[in-house]
């Protein structure tokens, strides 16, 4: 049996509020820090947080995400970003040249069902604005997308990209991982890469996963 990390459940008392400071995934009640999620508690420099093991993506500024265009508006695009809210990509944040939109149909830049790699530039409550003003931002062509639990994205990438680079190297694929849990894969052995990614998602809480993945890929 592989070693697992400590797991807490919602409503579980983690520690006294005087000892540590509450961070993401926790709240204070009656002078105690309590977990909000089913997740793994983490202590960094006196701040106690709980990383949820499941859940939807919560957009935050400067996140790099993969989105699907769902609608072309007058001066921008509506984008599905796998979150509780849909996002808006304004024309000014997407195209550099001057556009007279009385004469131009902006669907020639991005059209419905296109996949884009973009950055979240602003979040106000449920109002999410995207931007393509990032050197990495672009339209993703000829690939497949799969969805994983957003909280497991850091695990998929690994320490300084060790895990994702191993998968890329062994399968000869190009992979883009959005922080919203959408993964875009293009290349020859796509099926093998998908299998590895699904395994990481399933066993993300097990210590020593990198070795297991390397073994799976070297078969």
């Amino acid at each position, binding site marked *: *049996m*592989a070693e*697992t990390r400590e*797991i807490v*459940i*919602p*409503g579980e*008392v983690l520690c006294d509020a005087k000892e540590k400071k509450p961070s993401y*995934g926790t*709240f204070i*009640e009656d002078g105690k820090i*309590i977990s*909000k*999620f*089913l*997740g793994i508690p983490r202590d960094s420099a006196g701040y106690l947080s709980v990383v*949820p*093991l*499941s*859940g*939807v993506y*919560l957009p935050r500024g400067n996140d790099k995400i993969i989105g699907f265009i769902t609608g072309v508006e007058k001066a921008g695009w509506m984008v599905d970003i796998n979150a*509780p*809210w*849909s996002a808006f990509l304004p024309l000014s944040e997407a195209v550099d040249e001057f556009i007279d939109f009385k004469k131009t149909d902006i669907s020639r830049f991005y059209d419905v069902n296109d996949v884009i790699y973009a950055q979240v530039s602003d979040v106000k*409550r*449920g109002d999410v604005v995207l931007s393509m003003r990032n050197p990495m931002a672009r339209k993703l062509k000829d690939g497949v997308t799969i969805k994983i*639990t957003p*909280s497991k994205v850091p695990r998929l990438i690994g320490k300084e990209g060790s895990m994702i680079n191993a998968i890329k190297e062994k399968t000869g694929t190009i992979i883009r991982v959005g922080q919203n849990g959408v993964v875009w894969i293009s290349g020859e052995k796509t099926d093998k890469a998908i299998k590895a990614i699904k395994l990481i998602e399933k*066993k993300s*809480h*097990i210590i020593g996963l990198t070795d297991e993945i390397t073994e799976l890929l070297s078969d």
Partner: protein
Amino acid sequence: MGMKTDEKLIMNGKRLDGRKKDEIREIEMKVGVIPNANGSAQVRFGDTVAIAGVYGPRPLFPKHLQESDRAIIKCRYNMAPFSVEERVRPGPSRRAIEISKVTRLALEPALFLEDYPETVVDVYIEILQADGSTRVTGINAASLALADAGVPMKDLVVALSGGKINDTLVLDLCGKEDNYSDADIPIAFMPRKKEITLLQMDGELTPQEIKTIIKNVLKAGEEVYKKQKEALMKKYEE
């Protein structure tokens, strides 16, 4: 409730199924039974089986249903046509609509809905097999499914029914006891602070009896809570 029978429901301190008066039925809980849903759970109390699926938080349309400062819960309790001996007519009945509403009210206080404004959390509860106390079984399943879906929660919600049969106060009524009981009380509560979120009563009891039943349910609920905790942990054990 309400029906009369000559059958003795309690004989020599033992109930119909051989339980003691404050003994609850065998409990089985399983998390993650519906891969398509964000969170799901199946709960069995004796012969009562409920399955719950949670979707969301996700965008809510039409827009006039949205709340600008918080998410809303949509809850649906439904009995499968084959869940009882005589077929249940499919579709929402007066009873199902009422239980859907009280289930929603029982779950709402445990959630941080203000984290997801303008969205909806859909909770679907399906009763696969009914043998009394279906609403509390449904609430237990929904509570686990919500935790599994990663919806931020103040605490889990634990539910258990109490009642009175043949002038004896009992816990966790089964179908037959439910039909011929003097009174039954489904209770849901948040175990950390023992806050009650659902309290209904059908029948007649004295104030003192109600107090005793609440006390017994809160005590026996600890065991249900332990089972919930185990079920959540088990999903991530391997």
